[in-house]
């Protein structure tokens, strides 16, 4: 075992606070980022679960899929006119008020797709054929299972309070924007952020969102390939697109008198998440918390190393007297910083998975993707090494002459 590991292991109690601070820092960063991405991916869920290779057309300057304004349904002709577009259809999405029979009101997000098997909307991937068949009835809706309580809907229970099988819904009727709706099914695994998703047919959605018969929120068209999608998006943007002042990176090269916003599915999903990330204070708060974790980790690690090095100053001074160059000792301290970082990360990993599982049990999505772990791991290791560099200042006090009394 090297001297670095020998000293770390022997004085492990001394180094433990630094290792724990590094663990804490890495955990905070990974979980915050995962939570952030998990949260904001909820907002782009209808785009992410729509059909592949879609071109989206929405109201000008739409910043996020959930903030779409109405456009004329005839806009669909522009999509249909593109030779690469195989199929096109309208899509509805918008905020509405859910009113329980008790009078309690709740914000909800109406999502209306065509219900055919080849639907381009999220109903294709999120709902089963049986679900879509149920939604054909006027006023029929499907809600996420996790939002039942929020919307006042419950499973029927027996006198002992156990859910009666087969499951049956009670209090399944309510009003959305004053229109009567009935919950025909619940879907597990779908999360919501601002308001629960309410899945329904195009007809029901138009009624719930109180849109005129010639109005829709989006029109979507499917191309055969991603390359075709890109081509169509570019062409439509040049013909009809409005220059988006807020998101100029997306809608550039637009028509001088454009009246719509045009996106590919990937662009729209990204824009939606970025809108929530940059426009909500929540994104900044989470970012600051991660930064704070990094700073706390750096300070504790640096102080731990500084104190440990300072405690061995006389031993280092003897080595200096014997002519051992100073860089050997600097390498030892940096090596200690590296291994503290590595051990800290190793400790953080199982805890991160544990916390992720706990969060998911309470329906909080955490996206702990490999690149998040890699990024937070690298940043933490970098932080540990920086802390090591800071701690090197204690070695400046190593002076062999101080050993002579």
């Amino acid at each position, binding site marked *: 075992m090297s*001297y670095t590991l*020998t*000293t770390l*292991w*022997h*004085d492990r109690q001394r180094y433990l606070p630094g290792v724990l601070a590094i663990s804490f820092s890495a955990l905070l960063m990974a979980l915050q980022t995962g939570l952030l991405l998990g949260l904001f991916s909820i907002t782009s869920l209808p785009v992410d679960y729509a059909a592949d290779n879609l071109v989206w057309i929405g109201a000008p300057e739409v910043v996020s899929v959930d903030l779409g304004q109405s456009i004329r349904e005839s806009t669909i002709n522009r999509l249909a006119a593109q030779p690469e577009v195989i199929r096109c259809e309208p899509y509805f999405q918008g905020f509405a008020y859910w009113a329980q029979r008790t009078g309690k009101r709740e914000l909800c997000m109406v999502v209306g797709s065509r219900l055919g098997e080849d639907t381009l909307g999220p109903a294709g991937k999120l709902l089963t054929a049986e679900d879509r068949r149920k939604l054909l009835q006027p006023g029929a809706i499907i809600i996420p299972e996790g939002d039942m309580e929020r919307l006042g809907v419950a499973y029927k229970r027996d006198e002992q309070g156990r859910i009666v099988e087969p499951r049956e819904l009670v209090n399944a009727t309510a009003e959305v924007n004053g229109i009567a709706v009935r919950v025909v099914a619940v879907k597990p695994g779908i999360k919501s952020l601002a308001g629960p998703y309410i899945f329904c047919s195009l007809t029901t959605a138009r009624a719930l969102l109180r849109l005129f018969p010639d109005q829709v929120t989006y029109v979507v068209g499917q191309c055969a390939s991603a390359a075709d999608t890109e081509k169509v998006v570019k062409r439509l943007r040049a013909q009809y697109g409005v220059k988006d002042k807020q998101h100029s990176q997306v809608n550039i090269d637009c028509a001088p008198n454009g009246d719509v916003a045009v996106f590919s599915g990937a662009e729209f999903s990204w824009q939606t998440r970025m809108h929530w990330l940059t426009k909500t204070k929540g994104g900044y708060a989470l970012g600051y918390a991660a930064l704070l974790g990094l700073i706390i980790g750096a300070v504790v690690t640096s102080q731990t190393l500084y104190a440990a090095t300072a405690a*061995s100053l*006389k*031993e280092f*001074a*003897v*080595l*200096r*007297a*014997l*002519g*051992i*160059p100073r860089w*050997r000792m600097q390498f030892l301290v940096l090596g200690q910083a590296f291994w503290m970082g590595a051990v800290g990360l190793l400790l953080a990993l199982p805890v991160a998975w544990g916390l992720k599982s706990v969060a998911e049990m309470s329906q909080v999505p955490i996206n702990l993707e490999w690149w998040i772990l890699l990024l937070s791991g690298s940043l933490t290791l970098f932080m540990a090494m920086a802390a090591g560099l800071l701690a090197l200042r204690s070695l400046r006090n190593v002076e*062999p*002459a101080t*050993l*002579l*009394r």
Partner: protein
Amino acid sequence: MANEFQVPLRGENLYRSFGEGDAKVVALDHVSLDIRAGKVTLLMGPSGSGKTTLLAVLSGLLRPESGRVICLGEDLWELDDKARERFRLRHCGYIFQGYNLFSALTARQQLEIVLRWGEGLSASDARRRADEVLDLLDLSHRANARPAELSGGEKQRVAIGRALVKNPELLFADEPTSALDWAQGEQVVALLQYAARKRGATVLIVAHEERIKKFADEVHHLQDGKLLEEPDYPAIVGHIHANSSSTKLVTP
């Protein structure tokens, strides 16, 4: 004039003071002396007489304000810091009053680290040489012990091993026995005497204990930063194993 082989260490007109104004204390007041090769030279004097300062200046650890130190033919204080560091690495060993051993390292590792970091030796070579020195110090059975498991005498012997393991031509010891009882102190000085006799090292010891004198070949007395007259040449009484063929120096 004696050549560098007979006088490996020479101080010429060394002057060093501390503090300024009224608080100024002259620690070395134009001291000149020769330290002979293969001998144990003792620097003695009352507290504050400047003996430790003289050792620091002669050993390349503390710069004099004026005067020269000629060490193995080099003008020590004319060398730049890096060159002086290399000089110390090649030629000097130090033993201090405190043991200053790394608490995490075993006795063997305290010696190995000097060879591996100083001379860049491989792990196996460093271990072999460390074990040779530990054997010489009768510490083989304590090779895997950490400082917390060693007695004061054993710790000081490890500290001596750390100084000896490089085979230095010059060995400097500052009050090496002050923290030890006389029996242990005697063993320690005997080891230093062995380094002078058997290895031909030039050994300079700062001490205040009169009993050490019997191990010394030459004793210089300092008072108020000045050397007193001629050095003593005490009769070497009872120097342990000096002429013996045994390499083990520490009697149980």
